């Protein structure tokens, strides 16, 4: 799926880098905790987040992610958008909630990130 297709499914607007909209996305990960993103995310993964400061963009930058989406219509901080522009990372904003955004993408065939060391048992 391309970033452009994702924008259309999520009724999202590009905050920057629409010209990079043909990038391919193979899975998605949704979180407001950046260390969880850094722990579990693999290549070509779309990041959905409610975290609107520049650390969300920096996290996507470190992982070479194709794009990120800010959910629930929360406008990201100016320095977040500036950083995204600077590094050429498409940043989108959708009015949908995290749950609905994820649901729509899942229904459209976008998968989850596989967690490597999950052995079928949870440590509780």
């Amino acid at each position: 799926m391309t970033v452009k297709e994702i924008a259309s499914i999520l009724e999202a607007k590009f905050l920057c880098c629409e010209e990079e909209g043909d990038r391919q996305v193979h899975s998605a990960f949704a979180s407001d905790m950046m260390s969880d993103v850094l722990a579990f995310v693999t290549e070509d993964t779309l990041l959905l987040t409610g975290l609107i400061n520049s650390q969300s963009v920096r996290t996507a930058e470190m992982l070479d992610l194709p794009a990120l989406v800010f959910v629930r219509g929360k406008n990201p901080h100016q320095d977040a958008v500036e950083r995204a522009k600077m590094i050429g990372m498409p940043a989108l904003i959708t009015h949908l909630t995290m749950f609905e955004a994820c649901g729509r993408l899942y229904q459209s065939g976008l998968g989850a990130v596989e967690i490597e060391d999950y052995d079928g048992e949870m440590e509780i």
Partner: protein
Amino acid sequence: MMIKETYQVTAGDMTAAGDVSARIKRHMKQLGIPASVMRRVAVGTYEAEINLVIHSDGGRIDFAITPEGIDIRVVDVGPGIADIEKAMTEGWSTATNEVRNMGFGAGMGLPNMKRNADEFTIASEVGVGTDIHMLFRI
């Protein structure tokens, strides 16, 4: 060719947190380091840099390329970690709500560093500081 660089990291400055890691990443790109190695180093240095900003009184990150690989050293000037075993446990964190609101404080940073590096050592003394070494084979 031996490359060695030192970057200072200021405590408490969350808006600049990530600048050093981004610079190190750019440097690796110029040197043609494979993307998979670059990502592992980027994640390790970014987590270390954030820790310097949110937990330490300031410190530095050394980046070096040696015959063994990419060598990262992270040294701060305190306050040190009392119980390293606890600090290395996934989910254990002393981060404030303020830090959590900025997307950090899941207690995943140190385990992430260890997982991404081929060699990882941490030493710390309360009142002195913390010293982390990570080696990433190319």
